[in-house]
């Protein structure tokens, strides 16, 4: 499967710059997620790849072919639209058959293919139903079937699950992963929902509010090793603590935090900006912190604080712990037992422990 290579792409609408000098490579045959906050230009990027918009400058390559100027109807790229955009005057069969019918494919082949693709999306029972008789999830599947019937090189999905309820969304995510596995088509999945992106993606890119790509990597890389404060706080929940780095020969590396003192950190060798006195931040995921009322040993970092708020999530409980006048840390604890040995309540004095290796050092 061919890569999509985007080089120095720019796009503005009426003077508003949406994308500026954006370069990105989307690996072929993989499930690729494009994650960013609303208004970050990810849909615009998708529309540029689809051919629904024309770029102001820059190029888009599919494999070695420059498709920047290729008309939309000649690109072997299909889209699953956010609100499905199913043709309301056609039934399920005609919607799915559309891409083939307009190419004058023989009727018997169309029928075979439609039945086959509807089986793939578990809709074969609804083949002659009208569109408005289908539920949201079923319409979603029709849109999917319609987009994949012509075996495109790339399938673009623009927030395809946004209109579905949580349970259905989780099921569709699994089905999408299986479908991608089966088809080996390049999937480009645009979403603002980090849960969806982390679930489906082989690779993902994070876009920030200015329409720039902040980081590209596997979901695990993005989550565990974010390279900027934006990525760390946009993907998942985290505690950002800012301070200045202190590196010296005789002491362990640490960051100096106002009101808290020194916190031990591990400084990776590849971070050239990490010099003594540099303004830095650490990202500390709530689940990486151990919360307890008793003193523990063997941890490289410890803070004391009072429980400020408790939010029960079911599988875990979130504690907001005030560690200084200006800083409240979020801590997740798994609810492993029905009757925990240690009950933590509001205003309890607690110890927070974590290992310095589980903290990500970020440039401020």
């Amino acid at each position, binding site marked *: 499967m061919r890569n999509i290579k985007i080089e120095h792409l720019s796009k503005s609408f009426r003077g508003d710059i949406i994308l500026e000098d954006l370069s990105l490579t989307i690996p072929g045959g993989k499930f690729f997620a494009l994650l960013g906050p609303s208004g970050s230009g990810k849909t615009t990027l998708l529309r540029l790849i689809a051919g629904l918009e024309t770029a102001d400058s820059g190029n888009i390559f599919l494999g070695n072919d420059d498709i920047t100027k290729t008309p939309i109807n000649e690109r072997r790229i299909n889209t699953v639209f956010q609100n499905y*955009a199913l*043709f309301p*005057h056609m039934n399920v069969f005609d919607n799915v058959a*559309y891409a083939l019918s307009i190419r004058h494919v023989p009727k018997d082949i169309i029928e075979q293919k439609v039945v086959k693709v509807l089986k793939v999306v578990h809709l074969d029972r609804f083949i002659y139903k009208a569109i408005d008789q289908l539920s949201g999830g079923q319409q979603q599947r029709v849109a999917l079937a319609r987009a994949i019937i012509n075996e495109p090189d790339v399938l673009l999905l623009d927030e395809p699950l946004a209109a579905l309820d949580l349970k259905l969304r989780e099921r569709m995510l699994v089905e999408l992963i299986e479908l991608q596995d089966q088809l080996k088509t390049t999937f480009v999945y645009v979403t603002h929902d980090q849960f969806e992106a982390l679930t489906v993606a082989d690779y993902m890119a994070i876009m920030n509010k200015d329409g720039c790509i902040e980081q590209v990597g596997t979901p695990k890389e993005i989550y565990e090793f974010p390279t900027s404060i934006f990525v760390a706080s946009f993907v998942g929940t985290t505690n950002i603590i800012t301070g200045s780095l202190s590196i010296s020969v005789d002491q362990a590396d640490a960051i100096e935090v106002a009101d808290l003192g020194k916190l031990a950190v591990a400084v990776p060798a590849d971070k050239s900006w990490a010099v003594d006195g540099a303004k830095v931040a650490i990202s500390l995921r709530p689940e990486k912190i151990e919360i307890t009322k008793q003193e523990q040993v063997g941890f490289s970092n410890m803070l004391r604080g009072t429980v400020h708020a408790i939010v029960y999530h079911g599988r875990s409980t979130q504690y907001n712990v005030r560690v200084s006048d200006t800083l409240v840390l979020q801590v997740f604890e798994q609810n492993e037992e029905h009757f925990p040995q240690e009950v933590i309540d509001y205003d309890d004095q607690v110890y927070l422990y974590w290992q310095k290796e589980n903290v990500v050092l970020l440039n401020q």
Partner: protein
Amino acid sequence: MNILIRMRKAFAQEMPFFMALPAFVWQMLFLYIPLICVVALSFLHINQQFSLSSLTLSNYGMLHNPLLWAVIGRSLLLAFCAACTCALFAYPVAYYIALHTNRFKNICIFFLILPFWTNMLVQVYAWFFVLEKNGLINTLLLNMGFITEPIRFLNTAGAVYIVMVYCYLPFMAMPIYSILDRFDKRLIEASLDLGATPWRTFLHITLPLSYSGIRTGFFLVFVPAFGEFVIPVLMGGGKKMFVGSLISYYFLAALDTHRGAVFTVISALILLIVSLMLNKFLKWLINVFVGKGY
């Protein structure tokens, strides 16, 4: 007390009915009752003293006259041509305004419906200056050397047709516009995305989905154009009779009420039947050529 409350509740529940009542009554008084009178009139034999005498079918004997059928046929043809031409002209305008203007949409609509604000008679009279012997078109054509002597436009069926298209164009454009304005543009994008050319997209997606607007517009033009009175009289010079002018001739000039009534009833019936047939025909056309035909 209880009854009062219950009555008030019932009244509140039936509010929509009471709101609609004035219009019902109005239509009853001024449309349906006169219509029934006209139908009744066509079956009555009326003597010189204007006293009712007897029911009769003899008034319908006039239908043997082929000239009447010629008038009806001519009016149908004119109305049909005018409606088709309006559709051809109005669709692109409505399409453009609905789908390709952003900031200037309201201004475009304003200009589209501006003719509504002018009296129709004034509009029709204005066409004299365009079509007359020394009018705009003849002067232009003469000066540019396309013709050597002026063409006679006025008092021809052609003039009636031109002015009719002009006057009824907004009636076609507005319903098409209102449908296309609500049209989901993403359907066009989806069709292009699936590999259809813009023309095929129009044929298979946009046109079938705006069909209801075309149909509404078609009958908004076809029905009044069939019975149109002012334009044939002014532009046609009264030489060629159309349904509207013939009815007015019977009632106002010949003072022959029962023949007028017969002709009115017959032409209304024909209009109804033809409209129903056209409706079926349009639907068939859309299904065969664009809906599924690929």
